[in-house]
């Protein structure tokens, strides 16, 4: 209970300071829109084939825009040495991590939920009827992205090159989650139900989230202590 309260306090703090400055949020949203625009040059937006890869396109946008957000997660603690004060407090490092990952989940979902209708309009994809299962996929895959991203943001926070390092480390690791999310999103956007083989991808997403959340919670204390 106490653990959860502390995590939520950290998450609320991160969200509040991000909403005040909006640095990462604005950058991430603008970037998402730019990529959506760029895709229209790479693929013929009206072709039926584009609709078939819509899930993949959408998740590329989310993954690219997401790292801009994740970069800021621990970097936000750097001015004034705030990280030291958090680690010195009786909050366990795992609660700190969970709070930050939750804040990232909310921020990433916000960007995704803004990009989704824009994507639907630009590429003539009907997403509204499948909103509920789509939300499930969004939350599961975004949590995977948030966990890996937050952990690696902690790993690279003291590096001069952290903005460059984070994407290089994050993308190869989240491939299983991205793959599952792309597959499921494409199926859902095509208006098909999730059946049979596709449940495998849901199971993969859940397993991915569980394994990496557990690993991150177990290892984050080592990372944050000098």
């Amino acid at each position: 209970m106490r653990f959860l309260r502390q995590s939520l306090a950290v998450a609320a703090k991160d969200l509040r300071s991000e909403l005040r400055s909006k640095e990462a949020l604005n950058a991430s949203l603008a970037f998402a829109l730019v990529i959506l625009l760029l895709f229209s040059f790479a693929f013929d937006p009206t072709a039926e084939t584009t609709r078939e890869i819509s899930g993949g396109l959408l998740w590329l946008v989310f993954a690219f825009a997401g790292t801009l957000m994740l970069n800021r997660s621990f970097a936000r603690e750097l001015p004034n040495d705030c990280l030291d004060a958090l680690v010195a407090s009786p909050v366990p490092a795992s609660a700190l991590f969970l709070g930050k990952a939750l804040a990232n989940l909310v921020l990433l979902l916000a960007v995704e939920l803004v990009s989704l209708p824009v994507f639907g309009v630009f590429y003539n994809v009907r997403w509204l009827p499948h909103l509920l299962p789509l939300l499930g996929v969004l939350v599961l895959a975004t949590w995977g992205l948030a966990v890996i991203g937050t952990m690696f943001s902690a790993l690279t926070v003291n590096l001069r090159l952290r903005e460059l390092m984070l994407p290089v480390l994050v993308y190869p690791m989240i491939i299983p989650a991205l793959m599952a999310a792309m597959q499921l999103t494409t199926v859902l956007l095509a208006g098909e139900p999730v059946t049979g083989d596709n449940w495998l991808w849901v199971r993969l997403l859940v397993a991915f989230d569980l394994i990496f959340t557990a690993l991150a919670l177990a290892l984050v204390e080592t990372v944050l202590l000098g």
Partner: protein
Amino acid sequence: MRRTILYALAALGALWLVRNLYVILLALPDEVAQGAIYRIFFFHLPAWFTCFAAFFAAGVASIFYLVRKSPAYDAFAVAAVEVGVAFTAIGLVTGMVWARIIWGIWWTWDPRLTWAFITLLVYLGYLMLRHAIDEAAERAKNSAVLCIFAFASVVITYKAIDWWRTQHPGAVLSFRTGGGTIDPAMESMIFQNWFALLLVALALVLIRMRQERLERELDALRRRAHAL
């Protein structure tokens, strides 16, 4: 003493490789369907086995480092990853050469090929992270954590991609298939060559670990000189 062991290992590995080359190139006959190119399997498969072994060992060494905090485990982890990356490259290149001849293309987005490529990227990320951290203890600690994540992710990715249909030839060795699909002489040669490559890999790891140790000592001397 340590040096003698190292040279002995390397020499044994090299001799065994030469002997294997003789058998592979001159003693064994061509395969019926594929002709001469099938001989690349004697390096392709053992290279992949060696790379799994190296990455697994690096993951275990990283766990040990986090528990014991001894620089020797860190040196082993980085040595094993570097050697593992080299063998990943060998595995990829030998596979591509074979694919060019049999399939007519260098690359196809087949799950196993994709997985191999992702593995290479994940461990290149590990090496890049090491390069970016200057302070030795911090570097060892953070890269150990990354190495554990990397191994988990490589296993999960393997599983995930396995669910896709595959163009890559299936398992051939009898411990996977239950026997009957491969000539015993060939199978024994694959294992023999694997052990030879493992010896070479082990010698490389030991050399790399020695480099790490010397670098640490050099660093200590340099810092002491600065401190004076």
